[in-house]
């Protein structure tokens, strides 16, 4: 039985109410491993190479040219990391800093995002609030450390809040810009479909401002680390910041570098977490690329 006879009339093959599908054709491609992964492999090899060159240069220069007292050496740093891993100093102090960074980041991000969604959609409220926010944003967060010590003591709270304050402004401002730059045409479009204010908020403003929020989160991460470490440097007896100040106080340059290495690894891990989220949320980007 052919398709025509089932449909009852030969016209059914080309339904009158159907424009023929036009547009690009999808073809499955069969790329070689080299085509698919070649670029990535090359980039990673080059990165490893840069690192190795740097370490070798450091190792060669430390001693004959530069005073090891001031610049340490790669093996000295590695030695210190092994030693700290062995006696538990590394984990306990890293764990403290991780807690401060993560708690501070979450606190600042949630507060910043929530407040942005409350304040930014209403033009008048935003116009009243924004100069104050900008003024506070301009304060170097280090300058708040002494005040926070008075308010919260020298425990973990003060570091969490210092990290949170730094993150708060970045998330707040970026999200607010995202909310305000929502295309008026998109809002009108859903209004024409009969959308309520709630629909507009949830189905247009929220997704449209996601880019701004994610930007805020991404740039916020290093500032969470900065906030926590500054808190530890100012007053603490635990954490990676404490390790840095303690090592430098005893002229242990390798110890300072070891703590710095751990800090940058920590920041890298946090960064890759957020870029994972933004990759998922931003599959539809970039908008600027005209099709």
């Amino acid at each position, binding site marked *: 039985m052919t398709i025509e006879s089932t449909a009852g009339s030969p016209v059914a093959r080309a339904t*009158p*109410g*159907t*424009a*023929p*599908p*036009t*547009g*690009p054709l*999808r073809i499955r491609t069969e790329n070689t491993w080299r085509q698919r992964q070649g670029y990535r492999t090359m980039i990673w090899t080059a990165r490893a190479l840069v690192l190795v060159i740097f370490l070798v240069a450091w190792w060669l220069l430390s001693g004959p040219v530069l005073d090891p007292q001031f610049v340490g050496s790669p093996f000295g740093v590695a030695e210190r990391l092994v030693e700290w891993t062995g006696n538990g100093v590394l984990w306990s102090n890293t764990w403290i800093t991780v807690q401060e960074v993560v708690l501070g980041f979450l606190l600042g991000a949630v507060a910043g995002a929530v407040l942005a969604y409350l304040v930014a959609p209403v033009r008048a409220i935003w116009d009243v609030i924004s100069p104050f926010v900008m003024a506070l944003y301009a304060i170097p967060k280090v300058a708040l450390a002494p005040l926070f010590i008075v308010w919260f003591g020298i425990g973990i709270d003060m570091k969490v809040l210092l990290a949170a304050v730094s993150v708060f402004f970045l998330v707040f401002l970026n999200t607010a810009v995202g909310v305000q730059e929502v*295309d008026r*045409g*998109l809002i*009108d*479009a*859903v*209004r*024409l*479909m*009969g*959308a309520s204010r709630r*629909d507009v908020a949830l*189905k*247009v403003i929220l*997704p*449209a401002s*996601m880019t701004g929020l994610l930007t805020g989160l991404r740039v916020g991460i290093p500032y969470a680390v900065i906030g926590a470490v500054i808190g530890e440097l100012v007053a603490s007896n635990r954490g990676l910041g404490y390790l840095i100040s303690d090592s430098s106080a005893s002229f242990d340059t390798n110890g300072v570098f070891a703590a710095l290495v751990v800090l940058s690894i920590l920041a890298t891990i946090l960064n890759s977490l957020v870029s994972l989220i933004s990759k998922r949320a931003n*599959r*539809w*980007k*970039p*908008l600027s*690329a*005209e*099709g």
Partner: protein
Amino acid sequence: MTTQFAVRKVSKHFSKDGEDLVALREVDLDVEEGSFVVLLGRSGCGKSTLLNLLAGLTTATSGAITYQGEKITDVRTQVGYLTQQDTLMPWRDVQRNVEMPRELRGERREVRRAAAGQLIERVGLSGFEKSYPRELSGGMRRRASLARMLSGDPETLLLDEPFSALDAQLRTELQAELLRLWAGSGRTVVFVTHDIEEALLLADRVVVLGPLGRIVLDQEIDLPRPRDPDDMRVAPHFVALHRQLSAALKEGAL
């Protein structure tokens, strides 16, 4: 036949920096229910402003507009509006964009999915359900927008130069599709264009607008349907009407 839209002495000003920009001045227009009216005018004559007013997106500075005898104060879902610029949600794929009007109405997922699928097929976008707007060409986005508007099943369609960005072939196909949708459905269509030929192929009635929405010519188009574009171009009556509209457009520009 009843009047779908009644526009009475409508003016629209836009205030900017202490100056009033006049877009429309005392426009009078009636649109009969079930008719296909084309507003023809050059760019800047206030066509889009007039459509925004009909859609209820903006309010007139003075004068009154009614829809089925009721004053227009807000948008209404019975009126579908295809705006000139693209307003597909960039974070939704084609399928979810087309579903949107039904989603907002609270329709069940399976129902609206099936309906959207049919519309996508009808505008020739089968196979691109999962594509995001930025991955589509301008013409494909236009078709997706058309499908989205139709998905709301409006009784009145407002279209603002919907096909001007499409290639000639596709334009002809979608014009035919639009006529199929309109014929016998009782729907009212207000179609804005600057293309005389398009106006003549589609309209029951062409209203030529001059500056500030002044009506230069209001002409019934009594060409027999269906109107085949290739036959029409050589039909004497079509040529005469074309000349008449062209003259009206020129006159309006003065």
